[in-house]
């Protein structure tokens, strides 16, 4: 299964989006955030927003199913998790790591705060929130009648419990991040110095207060609002159980509970999950009587969908042509929260100083060289021919999904080999020895080592195509070790700044927070290219400053940042992608539009 690694990556990105999607946020309180959205959320037949105008492919997918029949009383639905491997089954928001676990979680568990189309927290969920004047205190109130599947009411102490778990010294998951750390008293608690988190105050069973060290707009997109049923899973704080026992306990793996629209009836480990309706769901009675969610191999998904075995499924992009003409389904798609890019290694991670150090003498240090390489890549052809338009050339590092922040004036560097050659000529990269390849500015032979990940049938031809593109402008690019590397081997080399690598092809899931400092900041270990600049530091800092609660200000900062990235090219975005989903025509009320998560309970099937 060559696909595995790509799927893994895709999964990670999905995890990210789901996970951040779930992190609720505000908007109404702060006001105006949502106003520039030029679309009417009410309609079912919305069209996908077309990224950056002319660059986006000429595809037109709906975001919601068109069947507007009444949902059948007591319908049953089968949903696919498209995977070549079993799901892991760590069914708790604090601990899970796989995408498929996230998919399962979304059926039976939800965040206390709902999110809107920009993944910012709203007051539409099971709880409401209010932000103080100085943006440093968040007060959260749980609505009446929100009950766990076992009938117990959801209490503020359950949300506190999640924070106690995430910050616990024994916690080994990936959700202890700077947004959690931003809560006052959290670092002390995390180091085991205190037993209390001083920044979280429980007022009563339904009301609590969070105090933050720094005001940051990230709170609105990164607020953790998933409660953990303390009474059910056992309390780590009283010593009733330990983190390790909790992670592997049956309360999480066999019969977990939440307060979502569906209850878990049964799990066949790694294979399928059976849900039944949660009649006490706080929003109302869910439409379906039961749901089966099962793992279906990507090799057979299209056939299964065609046969009608599966009502909902994500479709791998390389099978788009096959699924396009299947007549019992409808295809939905939206631009994914991800982009693929070519990274240019320019330095090293300094583990002592915990920051990126750019090396001005690095092989890829020349800005012109990087720009030229971007110009040389024919991404439009790849998108059209290989993905039939499901991918299209990327332009900037803030993806078009972030309508408010994506800068449409940055047009990226479209395929233009002549311009690339010109740039190289001007910068002094010339073929002096006549072997058909350019030497560097000092006349030394220039061989650029390119690392790329295996995975998916398309990984190999794409890598090959880029190398051809670069050879066409006279750059000798060779594959590291002469082969593609699997996910772990690849990131092991990239993370540790393996000197074998000069450039690499990676992909980022951007999540729902537009703030790019986690990926491009001076102190970000994920800034794999090790690109730094003072201007960059400045802009990134400004983007999350208290001032940035002002949307226009933040927008301006991010536009400047995108210009900077366009100019400096630490990475060259290659393609944006559509996430494709197939829904059987009998499915009603189904939408993949961001912010429509709350409608899950309405999903149903018609006769």
């Amino acid at each position, binding site marked *: 299964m060559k696909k595995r690694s790509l799927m893994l990556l895709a999964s990670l990105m999905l995890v*990210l989006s789901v996970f951040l999607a779930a992190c609720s946020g505000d908007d109404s309180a702060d006001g105006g955030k949502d106003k520039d959205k030029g679309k009417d959320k009410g309609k079912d037949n919305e069209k996908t927003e077309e990224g950056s105008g002319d660059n986006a492919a000429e595809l037109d997918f709906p975001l919601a199913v068109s069947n507007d029949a009444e949902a059948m009383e007591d319908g049953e639905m089968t949903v696919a998790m498209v995977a070549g491997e079993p799901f892991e089954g760590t069914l708790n928001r604090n601990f899970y790591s796989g995408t498929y676990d996230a998919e399962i979680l979304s059926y039976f568990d939800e965040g206390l705060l709902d999110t809107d189309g920009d993944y910012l927290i709203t007051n539409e969920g099971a709880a409401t929130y209010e932000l103080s004047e100085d943006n440093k205190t968040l007060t959260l109130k749980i609505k009446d009648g929100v009950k766990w599947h076992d009938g117990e009411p959801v209490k503020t102490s359950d949300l506190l419990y999640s924070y106690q778990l995430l910050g616990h010294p024994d916690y080994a998951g990936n959700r202890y991040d700077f947004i959690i750390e931003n809560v006052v008293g959290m670092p002390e608690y995390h180091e085991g110095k205190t037993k209390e988190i001083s920044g979280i105050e429980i007022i009563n069973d339904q009301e609590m207060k969070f105090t933050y060290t720094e005001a940051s707009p990230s709170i609105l997109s990164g607020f953790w609002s998933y409660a953990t049923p303390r009474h059910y899973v056992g309390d780590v704080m009283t010593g009733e159980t330990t983190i390790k026992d909790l*992670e592997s306990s049956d309360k999480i793996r066999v019969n977990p509970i939440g307060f979502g629209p569906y209850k878990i009836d049964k799990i066949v480990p790694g294979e399928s999950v059976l849900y039944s309706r949660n009649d006490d769901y706080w929003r109302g009675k869910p439409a379906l009587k039961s749901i089966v969610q099962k793992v279906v191999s990507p090799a057979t998904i299209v056939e299964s969908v065609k*046969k009608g075995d599966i009502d909902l499924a994500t479709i791998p992009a390389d099978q788009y042509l096959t699924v396009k003409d299947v007549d019992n389904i409808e295809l939905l798609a939206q631009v994914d929260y991800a982009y693929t890019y070519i990274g240019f290694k320019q330095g090293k991670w300094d583990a002592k100083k915990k920051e990126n150090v750019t090396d001005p003498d690095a092989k890829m240090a020349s800005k012109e060289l990087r720009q030229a390489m971007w110009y040389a890549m024919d991404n439009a052809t790849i998108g059209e021919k290989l993905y039939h338009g499901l991918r299209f050339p990327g332009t900037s590092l803030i993806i078009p999904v972030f309508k408010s922040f994506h800068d449409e004036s940055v047009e990226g560097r479209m395929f233009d080999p002549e311009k690339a050659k010109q740039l190289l000529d001007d910068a002094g990269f010339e073929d002096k020895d006549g072997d058909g390849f350019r030497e560097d500015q000092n006349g030394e032979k220039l061989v650029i080592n390119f690392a790329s990940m295996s995975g998916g049938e398309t990984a190999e031809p794409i890598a090959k195509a880029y190398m051809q593109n670069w050879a066409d402008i006279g750059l000798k690019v060779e594959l590291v070790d002469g082969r593609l590397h699997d*996910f772990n081997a690849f990131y092991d080399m990239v993370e540790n700044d393996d000197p074998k690598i000069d450039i690499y092809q990676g992909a980022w899931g951007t999540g729902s927070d537009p703030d790019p400092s986690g990926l491009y900041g001076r102190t970000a270990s994920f800034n794999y290219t090790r690109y730094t600049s003072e201007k960059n530091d400045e802009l990134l800092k400004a983007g999350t400053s208290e001032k940035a609660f002002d949307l226009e200000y933040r927008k301006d900062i991010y536009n400047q940042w995108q210009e900077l990235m366009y100019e400096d090219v630490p990475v060259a975005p290659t393609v944006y992608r559509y996430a494709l989903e197939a829904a059987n025509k009998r499915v009603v009320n189904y939408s993949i539009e961001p912010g429509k998560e709350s409608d899950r309970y309405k999903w149903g099937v018609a006769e």
Partner: protein
Amino acid sequence: MVKFIFRRLLVMIPQLFLLSLIIFVLAKQMPGDAVTGAFMGNPNVTPEQVEKIREQYGLNDPWYVQYGAWVGKAVKGDLGQSYTHKQPVTSLLAGRVANTITLSLFVLIVSYAVAIPLGILAGRWSDTWVDKLIVTYNYFSFATPLFVFALLMLFVFGFILGWFPTGGSVDIRIESGTFAQFMSKLHHLVLPGLSGALLATFGTIQYLRNDIIDTKLKDFVKTARSKGVPEGKVYTRHILRNSLLPIAAFLGYEITGLIGGSIFLEVIFSYPGLGQLFIQSITGRDFTVVTAIVMISGAAVIVGTMLSDVILSAIDPRIRIE
């Protein structure tokens, strides 16, 4: 006999020990670890947190320290913690082992059920069209890569004809513990099982056919015939008794093949078992799980070969086990 089994089990200990050492060291040599990439999902995680987790799982220790810790626990029956699955390896495997064993047994039984009659037919009527047909089938089964055959079976019987489910091990809607559930499991088993079994017949058919052809020419068979024993009886009483015997001896080594085959079957038919888990753990660098699965497979082979020897000695008086 008891002594023999006991001794073999005793020999198993150093073998497993060595096996664990080798696979442990090798697994550690794989580039990256379980934490690599696991944090990519959240760019807001601090590098300190990542390091802390490596530390917590002991991933920064030299391999011998890690191995020492692992062995210390393993002798107590604790095979460590799976990073990816966030649970003890033993409980993780418990669920999968049953599936793999079921699948392997099914493959084994069906392959014998197919191979033995065909082998006998081909041997008895060697060089007739029956024989030629069987031999050709046999070479086809030998030459066809398992995954191609499994995929074709899946498409034909799963999708085009729709006779069998196309993935998974059981229909979740059916109540646990009922007869219907058992039938559902069996139904799910048919496609992967048949795909595996029909390609696993090569050795047995080939062996039986050759051996019967050889035995036919032997003196004791000629004697039996000249005494006027009817042809049918010559086969059942004289030839088969000798020829079927060594098949039991191959059993142990069949297991190695079954384990390899199960990887393909489980991946193609989304049948959650050890093979599928192995591939998942390799890509996820879940070292503890990789080690445990290899150990289990090794142990299965050891027990299988021992079983062969026991069966062999039980039915063949010439082979005595002290």
